[in-house]
């Protein structure tokens, strides 16, 4: 066996292993870096593993896209038995620029009644995260999850020290 043959065989074996393990679980990212607001906040390293162990059901977060049924009242009439979709990441449906003119004109063409007024990525995260964290005593304060960058501190005027009733003409 030449070196080249060995290499080819190895690659095939490797490919088989990869294909064989392409089950849903192996597809699942262990960690997801949420980094759409990095100017003001550090990226949030979302522990997907830990959260998927906590949640009884993928559909709690993924609605009807993971092929595991759905618990959402609004999805159930059409998607009770929907298959797993090719892409299940949040950002595939919840765009990061929900109010750009391109997205708004796409939205106005949307024909599926239940898909209009879909939240953007930031809102989708916050609604899901905060709602659940409130129920399960997870972190809910802004900085519990989002460490601020120096630009963020400046944006919120961290060092403002005037008194509350100073200035203004109420």
């Amino acid at each position, binding site marked *: 066996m030449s070196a080249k043959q060995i290499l080819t065989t190895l690659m095939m074996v490797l490919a088989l292993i990869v294909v064989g393990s392409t089950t849903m679980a192996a597809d699942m990212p262990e960690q997801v870096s949420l980094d759409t607001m990095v100017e003001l906040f550090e990226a949030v390293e979302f522990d997907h593993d830990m959260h998927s162990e906590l949640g009884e059901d993928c559909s709690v977060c993924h609605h009807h896209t993971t092929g595991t049924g759905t618990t959402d009242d*609004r999805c159930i009439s059409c998607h009770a038995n929907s298959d797993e979709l090719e892409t299940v990441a949040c950002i595939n449906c919840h765009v990061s620029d*929900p*109010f*750009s*003119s391109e997205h*708004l004109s796409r*939205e*106005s063409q949307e024909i599926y009644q239940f898909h*209009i*007024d879909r*939240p*953007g990525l*930031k*809102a989708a995260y*916050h*609604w899901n995260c*905060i709602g659940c964290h409130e129920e399960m005593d997870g972190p809910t304060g*802004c900085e519990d999850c989002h460490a601020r960058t120096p630009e963020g501190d400046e*944006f*919120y*005027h*961290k*060092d*403002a020290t*005037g*008194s*509350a*009733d*100073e*200035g*203004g*003409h*109420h």
Partner: protein
Amino acid sequence: MSGISRRKFLAASVAVGAATTLGGTKKALAAGSFSGYPNSMGVLVDLTRCIGCRSCEAACNKEQKLPDPNLPFDDMSVFDQTFHHGTQKRRTDESAYTVVNRYTPEGSEPIYRKVQCNHCAEPACLSSCFVNAYTKTKEGAVIYDGSVCVGCRNCMIACPFNVPAYSYSSAFGAVVKKCIFCHETRLKDGLPPACVEICPQEALTFGKRKDLLKIGHQRIQTHPGRYIDRVYGEKELGGTHWMYLSPIPVEEVGFDPRPGNEPIISHVKEFLGVVPMVLAIWPALFTGFHLLAKNQEGHGDHEHDTEHQHDEEGGQQ
């Protein structure tokens, strides 16, 4: 002057006008037929989504290059501030074009409401302004040209939402200041306002006003029990471009529950229609004030200013 007394002031002027009509001319000049630019934009504010994080205030401060705040924007003690012996919550002023206030109705979680100009379809500020400082843009914003403002406070009295404020940099330099829907830096280029973009909760939905109305009614329908059945601003005062969905009656979050569906412009026109002389004299009078003010103010560059007034349509200040 509190909001109520300002409105009473206006109502009183209208009443005086009406009393002198001797019948007949009433409503003759009523407006209300202008349905607005069809594709103009708006914002739907969903009070059930707002968590009172004040990020919108911070974003506005940065975008509009406003003075540094007294307290950091993540300081929540501002919600406890009241004015006029506890009767009034924070209001917008020359250094804050938007403020978030907290309401704590009995038996309910706190509700937060962001305050800013509502960009009325038929703005009372605009119709009360004698030097035509205001413009309603085709994008939906109500903007103003500070360089022609004479600081007469008419708009402040006329606005049903207590929005316009003044910056008093010098005796004659009083100039109106308010939210301009980020018109210059964003809206006119099709971008959402800074406050909308930063909101972590999408409590502020930006879109065509006509689409927002549909979305608003659909939210009410799809979430029974979550909202009262009203999109505040759909019809109120002739319609506003910033509109509200509320979980509780609007008066409990500081709105006038019965402002009527007539734009204030109808009343103003009615009032002015009664005394046509006023129409003829006031603009001249105010132009006089304005020229006087500008003359006293600068010695070198006022000619410059006056030249600019007309071609800088409502430039932001």
